[in-house]
């Protein structure tokens, strides 16, 4: 009503081209409409109210266009009212809150200028229509008001640019339409007064851009409102696809629906009071991410870890979480089972590693402890022998005892060395798998062909398992299969180590009939690997072990 009245009153003074009645009516009307829609959708958000105020101020400004001196003079008081409200609106979008002190200072300056300085300067302002309050024209006044406006507009551009650069993707999605038009308008406010009216065509173009930006800004906000609607159709789409989604797809569907590729689903484990991811591993929540808990029938079922900017889009977030709650609850149980499996696997691998550590320690204790002492005793016996040999009355019997002791000690030392090597060959931890396999081949009474390729650094359990498989297979081939030739082949690809031992013996080996290979198969599968024995009577035996290089 007020708008229509102003339009009528000001119609008389309107310029033919830019400030048409239609344009003014459309802009003001759009602000009012969009503001009302926004207020209804989000009553707590001040953005709607600000839009309505911009609409009203827009119409109020137009009073200055009237050729009726009274209306015109009244209009001069509020001749820039909408700009301050626009600054407030752009900076407060989308939450309705001003975020920083810089924002608040800028908005305050804008309000003081528009509702303080400009009304106060009215008596010193000359216009085409008669200014009833004109006391004296001060030429410097319009210039200084312009300077303040340029400064505020420049600062707003800077704030918007910084905000855009530091925003995450979902946040930009929300900000984009409003920021682009806001920037356009701000650029016009900066460049326009600087150029002044000196360059008529440029002034014309800039003025058009300014008007366009003003016209588009309420549309941009409407687009924002509309996008929430679009979000809802995504939710509908989500609802259709959810029941058929695998855990991987579910997370991807939610990420797509919310426009946040960083989104992760965490399934709640009530007995551990923690979250696990879709593979069953404990969920790590980065400190910069926000967490939205998903509940179903009052029970916590899952959590979405997402970009904090999604909270600006609360409608979509809530719609998506409530749509997915049922499916998340269903998949929670599967995730729990997977989590248990992950734990069991990890504990099996730990047991293998602990066993290896223990073997290595025993080997070292044997070498550095018992063996070292026996070697010292052997040396002392030798000194005793030497002493005895150099004495004039050499006791032949004593010399014989000493010789036999030394021989016995020598045998004991050899056996001890064999024992230590069987427990854990020192060369394995000192020089790696290939060196250990070469040593194994060198010790063999039958020729062993070793086909090797350079290996990357291997995890200790993988190295030890591969070696023990080779050692066991070679022992079996020599002991039971009466093999003439044995071949060990080692190779690897990006994620697996392959070791194959083939012989030309009698064959007929059976994994289940109590050879050491059965234990080694368990060991391989504890590392997520696989051990396969192929053996048919008369056709030799092949033992093939595949071990992943990275623990799963």
């Amino acid at each position: 009503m007020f708008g229509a009245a102003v339009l009528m009153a000001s119609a008389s003074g309107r310029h033919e081209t830019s400030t048409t009645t239609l344009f003014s009516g459309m802009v003001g009307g759009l602000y009012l409409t969009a503001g009302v829609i926004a207020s209804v959708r989000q009553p707590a958000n001040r953005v709607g109210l600000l839009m309505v105020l911009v609409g009203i101020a827009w119409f109020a400004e137009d009073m200055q266009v009237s050729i009726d001196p009274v209306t015109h003079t009244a209009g001069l008081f509020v001749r820039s009212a909408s700009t301050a409200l626009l600054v407030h609106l752009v900076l407060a979008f989308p939450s309705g809150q001003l975020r920083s002190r810089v924002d608040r200072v800028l908005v305050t300056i804008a309000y003081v200028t528009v509702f303080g300085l400009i009304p106060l300067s009215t008596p010193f302002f000359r216009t085409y229509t008669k200014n009833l309050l004109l006391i004296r024209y001060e030429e410097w006044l319009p210039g200084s008001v312009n300077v303040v406006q340029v400064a505020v507009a420049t600062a707003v551009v800077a704030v918007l640019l910084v905000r855009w650069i530091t925003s995450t993707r979902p946040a930009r999605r929300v900000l984009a339409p409003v920021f682009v038009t806001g920037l356009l308008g701000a650029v016009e406010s900066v460049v326009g007064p600087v150029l002044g009216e000196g360059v008529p065509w440029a002034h014309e173009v800039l003025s058009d851009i300014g008007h366009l930006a003003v016209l588009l800004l309420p549309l941009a906000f409407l687009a924002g409102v509309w996008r929430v609607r679009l979000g809802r159709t995504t939710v509908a789409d989500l609802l259709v696809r959810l029941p058929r989604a695998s855990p991987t797809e579910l997370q991807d569907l939610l990420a797509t629906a919310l426009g946040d590729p960083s989104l992760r689903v965490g399934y709640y484990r009530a007995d551990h009071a923690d979250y696990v991811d879709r593979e069953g591993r404990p969920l790590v929540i980065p400190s910069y991410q926000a967490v939205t808990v998903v509940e179903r029938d009052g029970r916590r079922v899952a959590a979405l870890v997402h970009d904090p900017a999604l909270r600006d889009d609360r409608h979509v977030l809530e719609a998506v979480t409530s749509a997915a709650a049922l499916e998340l609850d269903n998949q929670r149980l599967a995730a729990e089972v997977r989590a248990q499996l992950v734990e069991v696997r990890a504990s099996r691998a730990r047991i293998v590693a602990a066993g290896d550590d223990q073997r290595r320690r025993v080997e070292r204790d044997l070498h550095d402890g018992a063996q070292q002492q026996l070697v010292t005793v052997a040396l002392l016996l030798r000194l005793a022998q030497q002493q005895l040999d150099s004495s004039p009355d050499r006791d032949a019997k004593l010399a014989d005892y000493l010789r036999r002791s030394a021989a016995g000690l020598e045998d004991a030392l050899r056996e001890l060395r064999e024992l230590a090597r069987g427990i854990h060959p020192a060369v394995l931890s000192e020089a790696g798998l290939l060196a250990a396999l070469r040593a194994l081949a060198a010790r063999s009474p039958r020729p062993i062909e070793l086909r090797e390729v350079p290996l990357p650094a291997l995890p200790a359990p993988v190295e030890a398992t591969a070696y023990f498989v080779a050692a066991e297979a070679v022992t079996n081939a020599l002991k039971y299969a009466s093999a003439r030739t044995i071949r060990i082949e080692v190779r690897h690809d990006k994620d697996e180590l392959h070791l194959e031992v083939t012989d030309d013996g009698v064959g007929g080996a059976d994994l289940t009939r109590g050879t050491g290979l059965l234990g080694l198969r368990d060991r391989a599968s504890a590392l997520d690997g696989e051990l396969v024995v192929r053996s048919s009577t008369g056709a030799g035996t092949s033992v093939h072990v595949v071990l992943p290089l990275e623990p799963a």
Partner: protein
Amino acid sequence: MTLRVVLADDTLLFRAALAELLGSNGCEIVGQAGDGDRLRALVAETRPDLAVVDIRMPPGHHLEGLRAATDIRRTHPEVGVLLLSQYLEATHLADLVGSVARGVGYLLKDRASGPDFLDAVKQIAAGGCAFDPDVVTAMLNRPSRRDRLDTLTPREREVLSLMAQGLSNAAITTRLYLTTRTVETHIRNIFQRLELPAELEHHRRVLAVLAYLRSN
């Protein structure tokens, strides 16, 4: 002439017994060390004829002795180095010997109480080599060498193995109950089959054999 010897081993009892054995057999013990760093310092200070080094020493009880021995061979090539170990690995031999097989040995610790130990010590101090029979066998057995070594007769292999252990022609003659002439023929045949130049002298032949064993 007495040999000036430095001993490095962190087992005090063994080191003391070894010092006594060497001391009563024509050596002078000019220094004893319990770890690799002390050994390096001692060698630089005393310039001995020979350093006897245990492969495992503090702080890590890993391969500190091997590393110290390798360093000494690089910085003081005139000092003979005898590495002792509780077990033998061909891998370590290659690291220790490097490119010049002069005045170097690698023996099982047990050999210290055996009959050939003092000979090995003298041989190394004089610039020769002494490698444990076990480790020589292991090297000869290495698959990559097999093709060419397969052309040797069992007796020739035996001779080659003794050569690598640092035995002289005379010693091999005695050990295998052969005439000097037969042994010389065997050695000539070995050089031919292994395509080694034949005109090298005593310990150089061993070095050449080892160089061949290490190659490719």
